């Protein structure tokens, strides 16, 4: 990993309006959890688990990773500054490693605390049953897998955002819901599997289709595979005019 690329990437994400959007994305689940706690609930654990699954894992996590993953290298390619990085005698795998590490750090810094805080607020007053731990680990794993895939996407196509959205909303949101056989190809399902593995609530309340260990291995394979392909892609990268 190259420390300069790493710090440069961290700084790249520190714009005012952009980080405002990220703050907004992170604050929304917390605000929702507070609204949720103000209401009457029959089963707080079930509803909190479903809230974390349906809002944080389904929307906040992929959207945050989509912004960060596609712009870590994508905005450099778009701006034309990628030339200066690629022209330096730095191995391409180190560039990918630095970009990946910085992206994961930023994304996790927003999403994981949002998960923990909103989970704790939602479960305040009842036993935790591993829900917060499970979802925190799940979002962390999700950050690794999503970011790796979106970095690869930003190198493979100049329309990374579009294909990323299509993956999140059409593949994960529609097709894997309709055809459950495709669920082993969905990062969302890996996250839910991991969360379910740690949470000890009963099966009617929250149930995932992929077992914990399998989900963990599949997520690791997805992240490692995407990073490997990203390095391969960057090694033979040709700068073209993107806009």
């Amino acid at each position, binding site marked *: 990993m190259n420390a300069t690329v790493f710090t440069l990437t961290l700084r790249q994400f520190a714009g005012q309006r952009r980080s405002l959007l990220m703050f907004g994305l992170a604050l929304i689940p917390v605000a929702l959890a507070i*609204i949720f706690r103000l209401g009457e609930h029959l089963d707080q654990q079930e509803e909190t688990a479903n809230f974390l699954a349906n809002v944080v894992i389904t929307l906040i996590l992929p959207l945050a990773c989509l*912004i960060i993953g596609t712009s870590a290298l994508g905005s450099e390619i778009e701006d034309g500054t990628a030339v200066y990085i690629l022209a330096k005698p730095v191995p391409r795998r180190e560039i990918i490693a630095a970009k990946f590490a910085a992206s994961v750090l930023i994304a996790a810094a927003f999403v994981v605390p949002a998960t923990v805080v909103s989970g704790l607020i939602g479960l305040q007053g009842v036993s935790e049953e591993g829900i917060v731990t499970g979802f925190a680990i799940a979002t962390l794993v999700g950050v690794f897998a999503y970011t790796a895939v979106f970095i690869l996407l930003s190198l493979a196509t100049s329309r990374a955002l*579009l294909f990323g*959205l299509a993956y999140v909303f059409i593949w994960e949101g529609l097709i894997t819901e309709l055809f459950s056989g495709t669920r082993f190809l969905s990062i969302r399902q890996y996250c839910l599997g991991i969360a379910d593995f740690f949470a000890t609530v009963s099966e009617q309340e929250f149930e995932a289709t992929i077992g914990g260990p399998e989900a963990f291995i599949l997520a690791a394979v997805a992240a490692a595979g995407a990073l490997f392909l990203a390095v391969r892609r960057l090694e033979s990268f040709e700068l073209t005019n993107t*806009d």
Partner: protein
Amino acid sequence: MADAPAGTIYDVGYQRYEGVRLGRRHAIWALYVHSLRGVFGIGRSWSSKVGPMGLAVIALVPAIFQLGVAAVTPTELSVIRPEEYYNLIEVVLAIFCAVVAPELVGRDQRTNTLSLYFSRALRRQDYALAKFGALVTGMLAITVIPQAIMFLGNGLAANDFGDYLKDNWTDLPSILGSAALLSGLIAGIGLIIAAQMPRRAYSTVGILAAFLLTSIIAASVFETADQNVGRFVLLLSPFHIVRGFTLWFFDATPDPGTQIGEANFHGIAYAIDAVLVTLLMLALLFRRYEKISP
């Protein structure tokens, strides 16, 4: 060398433009047409077409499904009713806006071409108006066409097209009215966000968040808070506004179980709300382009 003239002026043949100047109105029209082509990626590479065209096709799927049902069943059977159509494709419409709006306005800011536009006959509000018009037209295309296909298909599947038309002609103004309000509302919100954030990734996700997350927040506030207060929150969520005024346009009563049904507003409240929000967004957009330094 000493007696050579100190300087010589050459006539390099610069000429003034002598042709017709088409003026401001033509500039607006040209920008509108250019932007509308850009909405669907016409005249651009295939990768610019994939997104908008693909989403337009997805928006058609429920209509085609209804046609299949209408063709197979002997009686007039509406599985998908026109007043429910936008509810079915609302996420598709939001993604369409999120993909297209940053292309429309963000690109000119990223490539610093705004100064070129503003140095011509085009005024700053004209730029905003042309972009808004183009996005509204694009949104109209993907909302009216499926409805029109469904209307025609149901009519042709019916025993007598003339009778069907006589019974259901009131649907036509409803389709146009609701589609126009929806397009204005969604385009206005999308453009104001895209104009704030020139980076594509951020503005796309920002627009999606503005539609999807406000819908979730409004729904959960509504469930939690006191009915009399909570129901006004629905008037802040674009998706709820669209659902509300679409039902009103088609003169349908909302299902009592749904949030629109429970909120129990008169349908016209959503329509007025939509108009107000659209006008506010347009005003903000004008202000943004007055202030922006190109």
